[in-house]
Structure formats: structure tokens, C-alpha cells
């Protein structure tokens, strides 16, 4: 009896909150044969827009790429622009940026934890993850007035200084996060249903992961020790002491554990940054109309989703000639098919969740 392959359609109105993604699946009674992601539903033509805006006007647009972690998009673009224009950022500004970006990584991982758990069925973890995330967003609202599209990092430094009162509130929030993590880990870590849905599911070994260009926590879960904050330190990350958590067999469970451990490491970094905040200016003097001599630069940072790169080419005017963004989720999504092959089609949901992709960043 020749088996009849069924093609199924998942999305684009995918209820989980990755954004607008459509998966074309070919399934042989429950076992996944082929997965073809269809993207482009959220394409806003960012790179075309950037060519008609000045260097500073591009920054608020980068908020809308990975809208779960807008501050790290800002940092990625701003570091590339500063390297191109040769602007030296004062040390205090770099440290404040690290406080903001690591808090943003924390918030992004908490959002991911909620989405993934909800996809696999643990609906309450979504609310717990978001309650913890809201405390971090309150800090951003207090710092520069916005919670999601924050636009909290400018070319040359940061918009505002950090005072002692703000540092106290940040420490209070940091003390609250482990309590939430404790609850969530008690609910999930040793739970037989959770482990049965995640251990050994969606495996990718180190060699394939590197071949597919996977980056970020998903790559480190396969045991490849490659974190841009350690490999190519930027914005004085080399002055901080933190570990890079690694997984062993690159399945959904390891990706879950690696991101949880990264939350703890981010807390550690923010504490160190607050304790040793150097004196000095919180922003360099940047001319209002920033004209940049012709040149090109490619700079990468370790965003919560993976390695986020910006290539900028200047032509001497105040508007960039070309800005190309290397999106981590765009490359990571390519390895979804490899991870899903051989698994059951009810696992595709969990595997997609463990990849932590955001469609705003994929579609640009």
C-alpha cells in the first residue's frame, strides 16, 4: 500500500506569537518529511527605507526589527555606525549600554520562555514569564519612556544618565527574577511530560549547526562554544566576568537550559556593571548633521537570538549608501527543516519555539 504523503499548512495566522510565518509541511502519517517556511508577510522594505534616512534617523527603525529585543538592534546598528564614523564612545556610556542590553537579553529570554512553554502546553508559564518580563520593561519605561520600541541607544552614547536611585530599582528587579525562574523551573525542569516533549526532540549536532550557519543559544546548545561577546568583544564586554553556558546534544531541552542559564549570566553582568559604573560623560559630542567619509564596515554583536550583524557603506553624505542587516533568526530558520526531519509533526511547534525566531527581524 503506497503511503499517501499529506501536505499540511501551518500558519500564516500561527496563533503562537512568533509573528506571521507559514510552514508548508509534508507529513507521512505523523512523521515530518519536509518543512518549508514561507516568509515575507511582514516585509516593510527596511533596507530601502534606510537608504533615504540620515544615520541618526535609522536608529528608531531598528527598534522594529526584533521587536522583542529592540535595544540590541539599536546597539548593533549604532556600533557599526560609530566604527564607520570613527566616533569614540566614553567608557561610562559603554557600561550603561551594557546594563541596558543585558537587561534586554533577560527580557527577550523571558518572553521566549513564555512563548515556547505555551506552544508545548504549559499555559501558565507564559503568564509567569511575562510577569517577570514586565518588571524589566518598567525599568526601560522609567529610563527612556518606552517599553517595546525603546530607541534607548543613540549614535555616540545613550540618551540619559543613570542615577543611584535607578540603580537601586534595577537591583530590586534583578533580585525578583530568580524567584520567578525558580517557580518555572520547578514546574518544567523535572516534569516528565515536559522532558518527554523536549529531550531528544529537534536534535542538531555541532557540525550541522555550524554548516547551517546557526548562531546564538541554539548553536551553543549543540556544544559549540561561540559567543560574540567573548569571540569579538565589543563595547567593553571584555571587562566583565561571565560564563557562556553550553549544551551537549543540541535538542529542544538543551536549548531551553542554555537560555535559562544565560538569564542568570545576564543578571551577573548587570550587577557587575552597576557596581563598577565608571565616572564620565554618558554620550560623546556628535554633530547634529553627521556626515561620514566614504567607507564600509561590517560589525556584529551577540543579540539574544544570535549573531546580529550590520554592514554599512557610506558615500560622504549624511545618508548611508547601503545598510544590510544580517539577521540571526533569518539564518537560524533555515535549519528548522533539518531539526524537524524524522520528528512527529506535533513536535514542529516545540522545535520552532526552541529556535526563538522573530518575524520582524526575518522579514525586515
Amino acid at each position, binding site marked *: 500500500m503506497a503511503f499517501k504523503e499529506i501536505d*499540511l499548512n501551518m*500558519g500564516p495566522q500561527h496563533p503562537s506569537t512568533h509573528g506571521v510565518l507559514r510552514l508548508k509541511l509534508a507529513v507521512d502519517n505523523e512523521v515530518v518529511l519536509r518543512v518549508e517556511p514561507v516568509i515575507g508577510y511582514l516585509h516593510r522594505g527596511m533596507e530601502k527605507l534606510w537608504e533615504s534616512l540620515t544615520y541618526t534617523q535609522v536608529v528608531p527603525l531598528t527598534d522594529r526589527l526584533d521587536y522583542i529585543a529592540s535595544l540590541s538592534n539599536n546597539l548593533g546598528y549604532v556600533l557599526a555606525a560609530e566604527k564607520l564614523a570613527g566616533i569614540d564612545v566614553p567608557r561610562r556610556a559603554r557600561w550603561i549600554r551594557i546594563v541596558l542590553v543585558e537587561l534586554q537579553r533577560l527580557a527577550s529570554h523571558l518572553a521566549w520562555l513564555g512563548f515556547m512553554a505555551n506552544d508545548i502546553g504549559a*499555559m*501558565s508559564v507564559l*503568564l*509567569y514569564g511575562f510577569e517577570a518580563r514586565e518588571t524589566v520593561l518598567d525599568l526601560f519605561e522609567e529610563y527612556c519612556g518606552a517599553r517595546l520600541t525603546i530607541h534607548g541607544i543613540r549614535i555616540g552614547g545613550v540618551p540619559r544618565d543613570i542615577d543611584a536611585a535607578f540603580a537601586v530599582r534595577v537591583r530590586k528587579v534583578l533580585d525578583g527574577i530568580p524567584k520567578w525562574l525558580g517557580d518555572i523551573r520547578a*514546574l518544567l525542569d523535572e516534569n516528565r511530560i515536559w522532558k*518527554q516533549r523536549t529531550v531528544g526532540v529537534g536534535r542538531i549536532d555541532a557540525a550541522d549547526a555550524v554548516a547551517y550557519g546557526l548562531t546564538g543559544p541554539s548553536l551553543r546548545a549543540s556544544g559549540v562554544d561561540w559567543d560574540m561577546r567573548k569571540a569579538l568583544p565589543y563595547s567593553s564586554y571584555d571587562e566583565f566576568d561571565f560564563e557562556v553556558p553550553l549544551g551537549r546534544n543540541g535538542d529542544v531541552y538543551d536549548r531551553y537550559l542554555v537560555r535559562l542559564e544565560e538569564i542568570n549570566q545576564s543578571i551577573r553582568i548587570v550587577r557587575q556593571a552597576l557596581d563598577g559604573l565608571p565616572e564620565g560623560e554618558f554620550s560623546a559630542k556628535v554633530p547634529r548633521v553627521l556626515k561620514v567619509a566614504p567607507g564600509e564596515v561590517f560589525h556584529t554583536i551577540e543579540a539574544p537570538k544570535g549573531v546580529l550583524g550590520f554592514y554599512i557603506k557610506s558615500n560622504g553624505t549624511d545618508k548611508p549608501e547601503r545598510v544590510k542587516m544580517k539577521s540571526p533568526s533569518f539564518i537560524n530558520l533555515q535549519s528548522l527543516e533539518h531539526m524537524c526531519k524524522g520528528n*512527529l509533526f506535533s513536535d514542529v511547534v516545540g522545535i520552532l519555539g526552541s529556535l526563538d525566531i522573530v518575524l520582524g527581524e526575518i522579514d525586515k
Partner: protein
Amino acid sequence: MTPFVADVLIPAGKIVAVILYPMVMVVVMIWLERRVVALIQGRLGPNRVGFQGIAQPVADALKLFFKEDIRQRQADAFLFNIAPILVMFSSLLAFCFVPLGEPIRIGTYTLTLWIAESPVGLLIILGLSSVSVFGVIFGGWASNSKYPLMGALRSVVQVLSYEIPLGLTVLTVAFVARSMDLVEIVRRQESAGVWYGFLMPVSFVVFWISAVAETNRAPFDLPEAESELVAGYHTEYSGMKFAFFYMAEYAHMVLVSSLVVLLFFGGWLPPLGGVKALAFLHAVPGFVWYLVKIMFFLYLYVWIRATFPRYRFDSLIRLVWKWLIPLSLLNFLAIALVRFLL
């Protein structure tokens, strides 16, 4: 007590009561579910419509009543329409055999708190609950589209394979109580002084797990839950037909909870009934105890749903064939051995 009243009015009253009882319990259950899941997740839940949101399910039902009831052109008309009726019918009919308390003597007339008492009441309830499986198959197949068909097949396999441990554990209770009559079983528990739930904990746990799986409830709600892919057998339904499926699922849950209470936790008996010091507990009517116990189990349903992730389908089936069925068999043998020796 003229015969007219005894033979017509009271039975008619009881029939209306049996129809209303699950309906009211369903409304309470829908509200309880949304409220408890909300409270567990740190939010308030519905508290606007009516007092503390109790009228929310009524509003939902009303909305569903006026919603357009679409049917696919290629859907098989007869089966498509009969499916929700079958599912609803089997749940409501089963409620006729659920005794709510000891018969009450009013003057010369004894009012029995159930419609029908039969020596094999237990079997009838189990039989009726598997009739609803037909509703699921017809609903899924008649919708003539991929997702409902797969959802229906999955639900059927799950319900059928979980009926085996369910049956076996019910067998142990009937074996110990030497009768299939629910009222008899409760009286046996009263005379034995201990509830079967504590006497045979393994039977209770296996029964409860199979009951949760039987009603397609979390963490076994895979066929329905993957709304993005397989929305379960009632994907193509809308309006009142969907409301029927929805209410039937909750009615099925209430039915199974009352079964658990009757078989394992001594129906309408006050807790620690035998202890002389707590004799005043008997003053409270049996029906109240019965309701309190059912509410606990309904709460347990929602509590489990809010806590655990979903099982994947293959391990859900492996669980029942590799663990629950052998366990219930062993348990049955053990109890038979103990009874034989005593």
C-alpha cells in the same frame, strides 16, 4: 398523594431536574475553569458580566446561539448534523442513572433522588459514555476536511484505549462492593466504614488518569489543543452545533467526576461518617457533601490543565498500553487475592 401527582408530576419534575442539573453544572464549570486558570496565572479572570463574571458562560452560549451555523457543501449532511446530538444525548442520558442521594421519605411517599436505579447502573453509564465516541467519529469524518478527520481519529483511539484501564478499575470497585448498582456501592462503603478511594488508592489514581484522558482534557488534550494545526473534530462546526460539542465535553467531565465521587469517595456520605464524635456531620444533607466532592474534582481538572504541558500523541498511547493497563490488571489480581484470603 394522588396517583396523578406521584406518577406524572414528580417524574416530570425529576426529568426536568436531570436535564437542568448538567446544564447548570456546565455553566458553573465553564466559569470555574476560566476563573481558576486566571487565578493560578496571577490575573483576575472574568469579573464583569454578572456577579464576578458568573453570567459570562451564559453570554457565550447566547452569542453561540445567534452565530451563523455554517456547514461545508461537501460535508455529509446527515452525519454532520447527527454528531453533536449523539454526543450531547449520550452525556445527558447517563445523568439519569447518577444517584444524587439516599431516597427521602415525604409522608407516605419516598422520593428517590435518581430517575432510574438499575443493578447494572455502572455498566450503563460506561456504555453511554462510549456512545459519544460515535458522535466524534461522525463529526470528524463528515466535516470532509483534513484536520477534523485527523483530530477525530486521534480522539477515538485515545478514548477507546483509555476505556480499558477505566473498565478494569471500575471492575475492582464492583468486585469489592459485590454489586454494579451505584446506590449499593455507596451503601457498601458506608457499612464498610472506609471509602474505596483509600482502600484501593491505585485503582483511584488509574481511574482518575483514564478519566482525564477519556474526556480529552489536559494534559491529554492533544487532538484538540493544536489549534494551529489540528483543531479537533469540531473544527468545521459553528453556532449551536459547536456549543453542543462544547457543552457535551463539560457535561462528560461532570459525569466522570460524579462517577469518581460515587465509586471512590462515598457519594453523599459525610467524611469520617463512622466516628461518633462527628455525628453532627450527618445533619448536613447528603446532596451537599456530594456536590462539595464533585466541585473538588472539577477544580482538580482545571488545576491540572493550568499546570502541565501536553502529552505527545505517541507517548500518550504508550502510557496507556505499557503502564496503565498492566497496572490495572495487576491491581485487580492483587485485590482479588486479598479478598480471597480474607
